[in-house]
């Protein structure tokens, strides 16, 4: 007797794919992106070297579409579909998890819109050859700057809460204690990403390079 032959519902597979893509590659890419951009905290030259390194990877278009754009489009698009199938009730039941449920949807939408705009301004308009000067010039615009801050905070929150969700939903954090620990890990990731993201924005906006002390003195 093998009932395992019963194939899982398509919605099951899509949900799992949605959950998985949130961590890999989307979450991992966010980490990589923050890491690369933190080169600005050292110097404009270091930033330009690091971004040129990334801009000249072999098979760039394939890598970009397969590892970044398509997974993000799926994660965002299916996320909106999930949102529409839920019905929030946080006003009647204002528990922490319920607040996170609602916030996860709004931050996801904000992050999705922000990333779309961010790609347009920093990737499309610069023909994939964005430099420190391009980004720093954009940051002079107060609207752009505000959107940068909002986008970074929404993305960081969404990843932090997403890690908690992921660990619970794949049964990797099953007991109450493990889920609390997963929550703390998610909070830590969210705060760390927020702080680093804001520092990078400050770096571009005010030409602030605190780690330039690492550079050999001329």
């Amino acid at each position, binding site marked *: 007797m093998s009932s395992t032959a019963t194939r899982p*519902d398509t919605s099951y597979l899509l949900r799992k794919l949605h959950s998985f893509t949130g961590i890999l590659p989307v979450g991992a890419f966010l980490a990589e992106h923050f890491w690369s951009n933190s080169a600005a905290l050292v110097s404009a030259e270091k930033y330009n070297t690091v971004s040129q390194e990334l801009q000249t990877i072999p098979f760039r278009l394939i890598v970009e579409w397969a590892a970044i754009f398509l997974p993000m489009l799926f994660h965002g698009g299916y996320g909106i579909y*999930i949102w529409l199938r839920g019905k929030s*009730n946080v006003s*009647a*039941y204002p528990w922490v*998890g*319920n607040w996170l449920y609602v916030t996860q949807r709004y931050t996801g939408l904000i992050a999705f819109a922000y990333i779309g705009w961010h790609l347009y301004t920093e990737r499309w308009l610069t023909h994939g050859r964005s430099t420190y000067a391009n980004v720093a010039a954009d940051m002079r615009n107060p609207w752009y700057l505000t959107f940068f801050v909002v986008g970074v905070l929404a993305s960081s929150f969404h990843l932090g809460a997403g890690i908690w969700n992921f660990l619970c939903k*794949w*049964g990797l954090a099953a007991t*109450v204690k493990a889920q609390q620990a997963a929550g703390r890990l998610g909070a830590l990731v969210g705060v760390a990403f927020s702080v680093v993201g804001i520092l990078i924005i400050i770096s571009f906006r005010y030409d602030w390079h605190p780690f330039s002390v690492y550079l050999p003195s001329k």
Partner: protein
Amino acid sequence: MAETKQVIVKVKRQAGPKEAARWEEFSLKWRPSMNVIICLRDIAENPVTRDGKKTTPVTYDSNCLEEICGSCAMLINGKARMACSALVDQLEQPIRIEPMSKFPLVRDLAVDRQFMFESLKRVKAWIPIDGTYNLGEGPRVSPEVQEKGYPLSNCITCGNCLEVCPQVNEHNQFVGAAIISQVRLFNMHPTGAMNKSERIAAIIGPGGIQECANAQNCVHACPKGIPLTESIAEVNRDAWKQALLSWLVG
């Protein structure tokens, strides 16, 4: 003689699923240890509204009056809970009583929770012990499994976990936390485990465990304190192993 204390109760009345809903307010005589079921009984005894209009007794389900049968779940002051354990002295007045919103309405406060019982059948929430011949003794259940299983066996299918779940709604056929927890209970039992893959196959079907979005309201609303979020996580782990890995490793 001291003035008798009154209890003000507002009940949402609806003669049938297609009839218009209306609110009726009642003023009842306070008694010690009064709960919401006693309020509804007092109304039945003297079905007259606060402004003196004659009405009909309120239709509602209840049976055991000790939070063990699961039939009297309703919305009390906007929150899903058991009416029998909702003590008047702990509630803000006027006490608003409404039927649960996630189940088809029968009349007044009575709803049809058949969806939950159908879902329990779907996941085979039982342990098969009958055969056409004597199957003999089953395997022993270790004390460890007994201890884990007992709290799960306390589920009374009241439906509070479905009522508070944002993922249970008209767009979504999500079976809800109680059913998933029963999958865990019966898969945990050594005899029940013989049908484990069938239960998992059912719970990764339409409206299955994938619809859970981890809002975790269920565990707060459960009157029996069942570790529902733990059950969901445990079943989730078995589910993805079977759904995603069985074609590789059997």
